[in-house]
């Protein structure tokens, strides 16, 4: 059955992209989930997957051409089984709902990002768009400017449309940091975990336990996502950031999550993210890392309804059972959508997240 492969929308603000590479040619056999093209967008160069099994019949848009979202990029002869299943079966590794939306053109969806607190530094990854102004080191000024514009647009929409409320709590994570240090001392270097992995897992489990924070607000109503895909805000060294998802976060072990995060950050910085990863996050974690700030006041990425921030883990005096002790503290914050939840539920959400972080052996 004949089928069309169209340029998916990767965000509420993405309206066009430029084909950088085709990985397939007429006659190529493809499976759903295969990366078939690289498209330069305002989020950098994105690997775009196909969501049907079949054989490529025709490449419609050549390399170098800039086209609007929804444009037919290629035609294929889809295998009947896949074609019969229709767009609802679009899943692959991605959640059916989210992936289907991502593959359908003209969907107002998806991820952008969180407040940029990282200091800009003079390089930016991402392949240069044809015709883009190249700096001496080979980066495109255009792609940096367009990412900045996309962040501005998504954040403006967020501030305009989402009635945010913010909550913050300080958590004694000494147990977790000691547990991590002990774990990391006894495993090979490749098995070491970062605190961020604990955060990601604890957040995913908390989302599962407390509905109202992991999903999408679209067309005037909120829909909880059946699966939790935590997006991890990754600051790019040239400024700008992206928040690709770790799929099915709650179901993964800590070592698997750590591997996934390392791989995701590497690809985000090299400009090699997949379309499905960018469209999938149901909630985002922004962790500003070491030597940074105490608290982040995070901004939600529409159409998501919540974002969790973590400041730097710091050693500070803290009262434990009447004694002032030196403890490892982290400030967790929540930016959430008042159209969906209120402060009381938000406070419960943060408290549950804190409790999970204090008990790392159960993550």
């Amino acid at each position, binding site marked *: 059955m004949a089928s069309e492969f169209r340029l998916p929308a990767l965000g509420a603000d993405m309206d066009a992209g430029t084909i950088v590479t085709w990985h397939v040619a007429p006659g190529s056999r493809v499976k759903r989930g295969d990366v078939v093209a690289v498209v330069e967008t305002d989020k950098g160069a994105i690997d775009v997957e196909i969501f049907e099994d079949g054989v490529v019949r025709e490449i419609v848009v050549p390399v170098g051409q800039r086209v609007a979202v929804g444009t037919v990029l290629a035609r294929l002869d889809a295998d009947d089984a896949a074609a019969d299943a229709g767009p609802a079966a679009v899943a692959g590794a991605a959640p059916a709902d989210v992936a289907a939306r991502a593959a359908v053109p003209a969907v107002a969806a998806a991820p952008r990002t969180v407040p940029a607190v990282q200091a800009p*530094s003079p390089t930016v990854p991402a392949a240069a768009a044809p015709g883009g102004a190249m700096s001496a080191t080979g980066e495109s000024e255009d792609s940096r400017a367009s990412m900045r514009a996309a962040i501005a647009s998504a954040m403006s929409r967020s501030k305009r449309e989402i009635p945010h409320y913010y909550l913050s709590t300080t958590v004694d994570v000494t147990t977790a940091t000691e547990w991590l240090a002990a774990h990391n001392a006894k495993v090979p270097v490749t098995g070491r975990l970062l605190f961020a992995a604990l955060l990601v897992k604890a957040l995913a489990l908390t989302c599962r336990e407390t509905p109202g924070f992991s999903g999408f607000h679209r067309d005037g109503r909120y829909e909880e996502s059946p699966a939790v895909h935590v997006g991890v805000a990754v600051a*790019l*060294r040239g400024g700008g950031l992206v928040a690709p998802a770790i799929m099915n976060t709650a179901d993964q072990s800590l070592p698997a999550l750590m591997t996934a*995060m390392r791989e995701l950050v590497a690809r985000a910085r090299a400009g090699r993210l997949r379309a499905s990863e960018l469209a999938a996050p149901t909630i985002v974690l922004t962790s500003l*890392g070491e030597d940074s700030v105490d608290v982040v006041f995070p901004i939600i990425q529409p159409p998501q309804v919540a974002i969790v921030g973590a400041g730097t883990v710091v050693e500070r005096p803290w009262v434990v059972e009447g004694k002032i002790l030196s403890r490892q503290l982290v400030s967790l914050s929540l930016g959430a959508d008042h159209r969906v939840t209120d402060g009381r539920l938000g406070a419960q959400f943060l408290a549950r997240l804190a409790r999970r972080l204090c008990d790392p052996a159960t993550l």
Partner: protein
Amino acid sequence: MNREELSKRVLELLTEIAPDVDPASVIPGVAFRDQFDFDSMDTLNFAIALHRELGVEVPESDYAQLASLEKCVGYLAERVG
């Protein structure tokens, strides 16, 4: 491996982990973190690369020794054959 070779090797590994960093721009005495936002994920990847390529397992408690190119070379010089 002498210090010069070691330094060259470390820079190669560094740019493998952070392809967006220009090796020619690295200042030996300044912390990676201050030069190009090297974060905990980068440090972990760096430790993994050092183990894989040079056979040196750097415990977490020694991460401070990897902070800059200068420190790193000094630390590794005592451990690489």
